[in-house]
């Protein structure tokens, strides 16, 4: 199958307008007759549900959480980018586009990224109108701050809770449409399968997490806004319930999975402190605006930080990258932290941490100013570690945070399964091999408010479909298969808990497919994952029954999918014989240990097609054409 990204012709700057004009429209009267299923209520899911409902479609909205407001977008801290140029520092749509393409190490689509930059401004307008309390300057106008990978100040923020505030805006819009009767909401539901009728996505199989009832829902199109798969690593900054299940079921039903090995490791997280640790906590990248990253110059220096004189400190980011300093992109910052720790210069109990020091910023601006900017982050840090960042430098270490890979979609955000659309972090399209800070919120909302509402109409207008109901045999069949899988999980009654397997999978991936990779390790990981998967299906213990609220069972289903998906990540990492962005293969690096791309052979999207449980997935290539930017070695020096 030849992948067709359906990128409109013409000038880059005109592609989106042209596409909008070329998309067929659904008349208002017909919209009322169309049903759309939206899975997920994060920024992408909530915003698209609300917007589609505003347009007149009937929406069924599903989420795992007890209410749509708790989707994991809520944890995003730092901010959202837009090319408003309110700071008058030379920003433009073109510059945001360029920074994002370059930040992604030239592994994303030009047309998508340009559209994202164009729409960024509408998002800010809309969110302000919704009552999102963005930070403002003394004149009452919107304030901006800087973020990694950019030399302009274009990030809008609400303290350290930007994701929360944007999500509450979208959640409000969703709630409004529920009250209007246009959206029916299904909280505490997990997706067990995607149902295809005549090769088109027509519905989902769900399980009520409260009663365990398996339900089927039919519609005219299905939208997955299910987020990323960082939890495959067990320890990540994602919420505990974040999972790959819906996406992986879609993959098994024919949606291609693109670039699964592109996983972002965020440089500023609170280090791991024990084997019982359940998740990692991110400290916003915005801290790098004022915090200085350093380690002792001498390996093994175990003195407390205040005992180490200035001359014996290595501010390695400032030294290596004078132009961007502490604000280099995330992949670069993370890899450098790992390199310092590998050299034995890591600090803290485990030696797996570096300092993020606010001492100079406090001396320069005063404690009050710094507290005002980062107070809630400092508080969060202190709650977890029992240590005050105003007195001692923070200790940070990279952690898995975001996944650039996801289901493959065309320019209209449709997967390779007709009628199955994928938006937000769940798709692969906009961030290439590395996402810049404050771009995830931008992409989720761009997809949800301003892109999919139009492009889904194009699909629905030109596709003739019979109405199907959940009584269709395909639904019954899918429900039966889902149920038998649940029964199988419950019947194993082995000796190891679900979390135990999950932790082992996570550590395999972190060790072999983490911040730096090599082919030998990846091959080993592939075998380890297979063995672990086999053991899982023979030796997992899942207490309770399938007909009740059973959190162990929920986790078991997700981990079973992670165990398959993890192998796909490794296969993708093995196939990409270059280094780019977050994917750092030790065999491909510059003399200065930076990622070395191979544009001749790997300037493409790797899209994987499921070929059966016992077969290796089939590789498909979407070549990336760069007509407007020049491919260059990323340099932040």
């Amino acid at each position: 199958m030849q992948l067709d990204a359906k990128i409109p012709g013409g000038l880059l700057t005109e592609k989106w307008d042209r596409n909008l004009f070329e998309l067929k429209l659904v008349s208002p009267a017909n919209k009322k007759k169309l049903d759309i299923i939206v899975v997920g209520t994060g920024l992408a899911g909530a915003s698209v549900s609300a917007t589609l409902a505003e347009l007149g479609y009937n929406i069924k909205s599903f989420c795992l959480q007890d209410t749509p407001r708790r989707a994991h977008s809520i944890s995003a801290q730092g901010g959202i980018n837009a090319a408003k140029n309110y700071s008058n520092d030379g920003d433009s749509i073109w510059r945001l586009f360029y920074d994002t393409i370059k930040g992604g190490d030239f592994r994303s689509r030009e047309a998508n990224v340009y559209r994202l930059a164009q729409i960024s401004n509408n998002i800010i307008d809309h969110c302000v109108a919704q009552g999102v309390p963005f930070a403002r300057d003394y004149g009452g106008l919107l304030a901006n701050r800087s973020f990694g990978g950019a030399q302009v100040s274009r990030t809008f923020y609400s303290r350290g809770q930007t994701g929360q505030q944007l999500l509450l805006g979208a959640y409000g819009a969703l709630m409004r449409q529920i009250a209007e009767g246009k959206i029916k909401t299904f909280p505490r539901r997990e997706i067990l399968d995607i149902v295809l009728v005549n090769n088109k996505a027509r519905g989902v199989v769900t399980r009520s997490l409260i009663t365990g009832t398996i339900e089927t829902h039919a519609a005219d199109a299905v939208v997955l806004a299910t987020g990323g798969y960082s939890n495959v690593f067990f320890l990540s900054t994602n919420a505990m319930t974040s999972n790959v299940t819906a996406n992986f079921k879609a993959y098994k039903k024919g949606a291609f999975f693109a670039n699964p090995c592109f996983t972002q490791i965020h440089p500023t997280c609170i280090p791991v402190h024990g084997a019982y640790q359940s998740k990692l906590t991110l400290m916003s990248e915005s801290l790098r605006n004022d915090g200085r990253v350093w380690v002792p110059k001498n390996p093994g220096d175990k003195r407390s930080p205040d005992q180490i004189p200035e001359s014996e400190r290595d501010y390695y980011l400032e030294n290596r990258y004078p132009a961007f300093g502490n604000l280099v992109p995330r992949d670069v910052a993370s890899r450098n932290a790992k390199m310092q720790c590998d050299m034995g210069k890591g600090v803290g109990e485990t030696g797996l941490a570096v300092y993020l020091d606010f001492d100079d910023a406090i001396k320069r601006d005063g404690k009050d100013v710094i507290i005002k900017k980062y107070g809630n982050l400092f508080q969060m840090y202190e709650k977890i570690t029992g240590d005050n960042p105003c007195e001692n430098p923070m200790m940070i270490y990279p952690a898995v945070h975001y996944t650039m890979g996801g289901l493959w979609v065309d320019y209209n955000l449709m997967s390779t399964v007709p009628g199955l659309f994928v938006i937000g972090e769940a798709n692969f399209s906009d961030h290439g091999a590395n996402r810049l800070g404050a771009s995830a919120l931008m992409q989720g909302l761009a997809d949800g408010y301003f892109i999919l509402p139009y492009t889904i109409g194009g699909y629905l207008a030109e596709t003739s479909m019979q109405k199907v109901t959940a009584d269709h045999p395909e639904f019954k069949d899918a429900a039966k298969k889902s149920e038998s899988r649940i029964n199988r999980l419950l019947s194993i009654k082995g000796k190891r808990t679900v979390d135990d397997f999950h932790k082992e999978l996570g550590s395999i991936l972190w060790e072999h497919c983490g911040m730096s990779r090599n082919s030998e390790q990846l091959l080993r990981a592939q075998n380890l994952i297979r063995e672990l998967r086999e053991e899982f299906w023979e030796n997992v213990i899942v207490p309770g029954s399938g007909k009740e609220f059973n959190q162990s069972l929920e986790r078991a289903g997700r981990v079973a999918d992670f165990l398959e998906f993890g192998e796909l990540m490794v296969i993708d990492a093995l196939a990409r014989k270059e280094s780019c962005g977050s994917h750092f293969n030790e065999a491909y690096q510059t003399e200065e240990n930076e990622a070395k791309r191979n544009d001749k052979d790997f300037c493409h999207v790797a899209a994987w097609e499921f070929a059966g449980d016992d077969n290796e997935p089939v590789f498909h290539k979407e070549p990336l054409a760069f007509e407007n930017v020049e491919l260059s070695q990323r340099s932040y020096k």
Partner: protein
Amino acid sequence: MTSTTDKKNINLTLKIWRQNGPDNNGFETYYADDISTDMSFLEMIDVINERLTLEGKDPVAFDHDCREGICGTCGTMINGRAHGPEKGTTLCQLHMRHFADGDTLVIEPWRSRAFKIIKDLVVDRSPLDKIIQAGGYISVNAGKAPDANAIPIPQETAETAMDAAACIGCGACVASCPNASAMLFVGAKISHLALLPQGKPEAMIRVMAMVNEMDRQCFGNCTNHRECEAECPKEISITNIARLNREFIKSGLF
């Protein structure tokens, strides 16, 4: 600072409310031995649950998700205090270093007529969603907005609105209120939207609709005990309840 020297493990007795079905309920006692003080409270429950699972027993059901204090999913009463004894802290941010060796902890779900218990410590907080559905938003369709800087908003106003908007909807205000009232939750949303010029056009309809819905959901009445403010993990002030009352008077009487 928690350094290696004062790191220690503690033993606790837990009395946890177990409930599966309306009649099958009561407190069960568990012994949490050898708990690292660096653990979070939820990690301690994880450890208990892993042990229960291996013993072939039913693990304790509890709500949790982001584990960084922002999603509002977690929350139980610990020895009579919502989210435990620490101020401005969600349950997931509570760490075991705040407990002493030998402590007994009574762990109960949020109790209120409006929040039905689903299982063990998990309750149904959908009444809070119903209140938001009644009007906790600004009615603007995508595409209609003017330029973001078209309306300047004084910094102080934006900050006060943000203070109120920080609510995570965890329900600790209801749980800790002697009357199981949701006034702080409603007050926070009303304040957030009433303070901003964008929220003003609907302010009068909004407050009436939300208060009516709050009553319909059988929450108690506020008698200004201030327990909600004292327990709110985001330290939202009862000045927001006063603002709700003001908005209500404006809407109801003028």
